Structure formats: structure tokens, C-alpha cells
């Protein structure tokens, strides 16, 4: 008789909304296609049909887009590292490690990202003068690291118990079992939610414009505040965000599809 086991599925959901398009939807006029190609067409057509002021606006944005990517990509990489450590801490049998990881997750998830950003840049700025881009990346990484931690925890726990048992029975240490057997399988499970977090972080990165980092939103705002083309500028900014996030959500969906077939 085996001891009573909780039933474990491999599906995990850690998300605040469906950003990733449903691959089953193949219709020519799927929601994704309408939004993506519609936004893309507007971004291209508006400067052509109405050069003043759209051509001017679009010329201002590339530097901001680069900065947005820089903040997003750097933050997601650091957040993945923090998340992996936090996730392992959350399943640790060592009480102290487990508590530290859990408290980190609870505290960070309970404070709005904008408040964390202000806290690191303005409040901590009294003691350590951090560069604003460094502050921005630190705030995003620390915040998203907590969410990533929960994704990794759920991912690791979704791997059937028998996998760890088989590895231990073969003489592996728990660390070896985690590294060689559990984590490689976890990657597959966490990829969709991690992709979701990447897109969410990309959008949340617009918050860093408040601490004067010239990202996509700030680039638009600087232009609008001198020309008073608020409507035109923010329309363009919104469309560019939309094109970028929809593009990445498609990539994540394709990766997910590939991985689920490659078993």
C-alpha cells in the first residue's frame, strides 16, 4: 500500500489574465490577428497618411523602445534567477530558508510595484544614491522575482512524486535529483507562465518612466509635453506597446506548442 497521495496534475496556472493566444484558434479573423495586424497597419499608415505630426512622433520612439527592452530583458533575467532561488527556498525542508523565501513572497506581493519603485528610488535614495535605471531594474526584478518564485514552486511541485523517488532510489542526492531530473521537467511546465510574466513585465516597465527613465512611454510624454499633441502621441505609444506585446505573446504560444509536442 502506498501512502495516500494528493492527486497531482501537470497543469499550473499562475496568471492574471489570458495574454497568450489560444493556438486552437486558426480562423483568419482571430482576435489576435485583428488586434496585431490592425495595430501594425495603423503604426505604418498613420505616419504615411498624416506625416504631421505622426512622422515626428514615430521618429522619437525608437530610443524609448530600446530603453524599454533594456529594462524588461535585464529585469526578467534577474527575476528568473531570484525566482528559481525563491522557488527552491519555498520547497526547502530547512525551516529558516523556507520562511525567508515565503516572507519575501508575501511582502513583495503585498506592495504595489509603483510603491516599490518609489521606495527604492526615493526612500532608499536617502542612504544609497542609486542610478535611476539601476533603481528601476532593481524594483522590477525584486517584484517579479517573487511572482517567478511562485511559478517555479508550482512548477516543481507539479512534477509527480515518483520522479524524485526514482532518482533517490538510484542513489542520487536530493540536489542531483532536482538538477538532473526535476528542474529539466519544470522548465517545460513553467515556460507558459514565465512567458506571461515577461509580457506583464514589459507592460509594467512603463512605470519606470515616473522615475525619469526615458522608456517608450516617457519618450512619448516628453514629445507631447512640448508639442501638445497628446492624443496623437499617446495613440502611437499605445499602438506600439500593443504591437510589441502581441508579437511576444504569439512567440510564447508557439514555444508552448513546440514544447508540448516534444515530449
Amino acid at each position: 500500500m502506498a501512502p495516500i497521495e494528493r492527486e497531482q496534475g501537470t497543469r499550473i496556472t499562475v496568471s492574471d489574465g489570458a495574454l497568450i493566444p489560444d493556438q486552437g484558434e486558426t480562423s483568419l479573423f482571430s482576435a489576435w490577428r485583428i488586434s496585431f495586424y490592425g495595430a501594425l497597419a495603423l503604426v505604418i499608415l498613420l505616419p504615411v497618411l498624416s506625416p504631421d505630426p505622426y512622422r515626428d512622433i514615430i521618429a522619437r520612439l525608437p530610443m524609448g523602445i530600446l530603453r524599454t527592452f533594456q529594462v524588461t530583458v535585464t529585469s526578467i533575467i534577474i527575476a528568473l534567477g531570484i525566482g528559481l532561488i525563491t522557488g527552491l527556498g519555498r520547497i526547502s525542508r530547512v525551516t529558516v530558508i523556507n520562511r525567508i523565501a515565503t516572507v519575501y513572497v508575501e511582502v513583495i506581493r503585498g506592495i504595489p510595484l509603483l510603491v516599490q519603485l518609489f521606495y527604492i528610488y526615493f526612500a532608499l535614495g536617502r542612504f544609497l544614491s542609486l542610478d535611476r535605471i539601476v533603481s528601476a531594474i532593481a524594483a522590477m526584478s525584486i517584484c517579479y522575482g517573487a511572482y517567478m518564485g511562485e511559478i517555479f514552486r508550482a512548477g516543481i511541485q507539479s512534477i509527480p512524486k515518483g520522479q524524485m523517488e526514482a532518482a533517490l532510489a538510484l542513489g542520487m542526492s536530493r540536489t542531483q535529483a532536482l538538477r538532473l531530473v526535476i528542474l529539466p521537467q519544470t522548465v517545460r511546465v513553467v515556460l507558459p507562465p514565465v512567458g506571461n510574466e515577461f509580457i506583464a513585465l514589459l507592460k509594467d516597465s512603463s512605470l519606470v518612466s515616473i522615475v525619469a527613465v526615458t522608456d517608450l512611454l516617457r519618450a512619448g510624454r516628453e514629445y507631447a509635453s512640448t508639442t501638445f499633441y497628446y492624443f496623437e502621441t499617446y495613440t502611437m505609444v499605445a499602438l506600439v506597446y500593443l504591437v510589441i506585446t502581441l508579437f511576444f505573446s504569439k512567440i510564447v504560444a508557439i514555444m508552448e506548442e513546440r514544447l508540448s509536442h516534444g515530449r
Partner: protein
Amino acid sequence: MADSRIRIENVSKRFGSVTAVRNASLTVAAGEVVLIIGPSGSGKSTLLRCVNRLETASEGEIFIDDDSVTDPRGNIRAIREEVGMVFQNFNLFPHLTARDNVALSPRKVRGVSKEEAYQRAEALLDRVGLSDKYDSYPAQLSGGQQQRVAIARALAMQPKVMLFDEPTSALDPEMIKEVLDAMLDLAQEGMTMLVVSHEMGFARAAADKVVFMDNGEIIEIGAPDAVFDRPTEERTRKFLAHIL
């Protein structure tokens, strides 16, 4: 006692208020094949899992040769290297090919070179009749094939003892024979085996002893023919009447 490979002495295992195994004692000599039978929930898998400490016995002691499994200061990893285990649900590593499933532990635990580990993995897969499946992933194999890979994987550590936890229970009927044949070969080569299973045919062909457990206790131990044909205990008789 010099030739006892596995020695289980007065072992009990409790899960909270439930006693899964009660004061069980059993010895398995080197080269012996012992089958444990009994109704579901009788504690037979729990007892088996205590032998390589996937479950920690609440009381009593277990030895593999002279090494204590139950001693918390003992080197359980060293013992597990010597004790192969085959699970009901195979538990193959789904992200690795058959060859890598078999070669992983020799490489990472024993430090065998990749070439040598692969060579041995292929030889073992040949032995269980899977010479054409080296590069298949578990999901591409049938249940019977997966279980044979699992047997090869356990053998790759060159164990002194093999534990089988209901190895054929999750298989379709037409695949049971191929797994039993692989186990039979192993028994004939003199492997010490402790098997939780109701396969009567295998018991009669290969087992030296059959152990009947009920409600956490060992009720009866004897030769297969004696236990199956002339059980001395009423509970054994009742159980056999159910499964025959």
C-alpha cells in the same frame, strides 16, 4: 545470518494514527526470490519502500548485508546504489531517451564516463529486448517497454538486490508477460529479489518464498506451492479464494 542479503527485524510503520506495517520480520538470503502478496492496503508496498528508505520505518531495523538502512546516521545513498527499485508506474524520466534514462545514474552517481555508461546502457537494453529503442523517449514506448527500460535502469547500478513494487499492475494484460520474462531471466541469473506482486505464475516459476500480508502484518511465509495450495491460515485462504 552471514548469507542474508535483506534482514527486516520487527519493523513497524505508522502514518499519523494509521499503522501501515506492524512488527514485520523477514529475511531474504542471497540469490533468493521472495514474493509478497496480500490485499490492497495490507502494507506490502510500504514494507518494500522501507527497505531502501523511501519510507522511514517507525520502529525496528532493516539491514542490507551488514549495513543498516534504518540507522539515521548511515549512508543511505551508498545503500541505495546497491538496491535497485522498479515501480508500479515505471517513473522513467520523460525528458531523457531510454539510453539516457539507463546511463544517467552510473554517470552522475558513479562517475562512469559517458561512452562507457552508454555502452553498458545499450547492453542492458539489449538484454531486456529493446535493442531498437535506444533513442526512444518514454512517451514513445508502450507500458511493457517502459517497464523493461526501468528494469535496465535499475540494473545499470549493478545492484545486489532488486525491489519490485507491483511491476505489472499498471500494464495491459498482453504486456505483462514481457516484463515477467525479464524478471524471470534476472531470477535465474541469481539476483536477490523482493517482489510485491500477485503474479502466481511468476511465483511458482521463480519464487523461493511467498509472504502473505494482511492489515499490516505478515500472516504466513512459505514455499509458493505450500502457500498457494495448502495455506495454513484462514485469512490467506480467504484472500486466495478472491484472486484465483
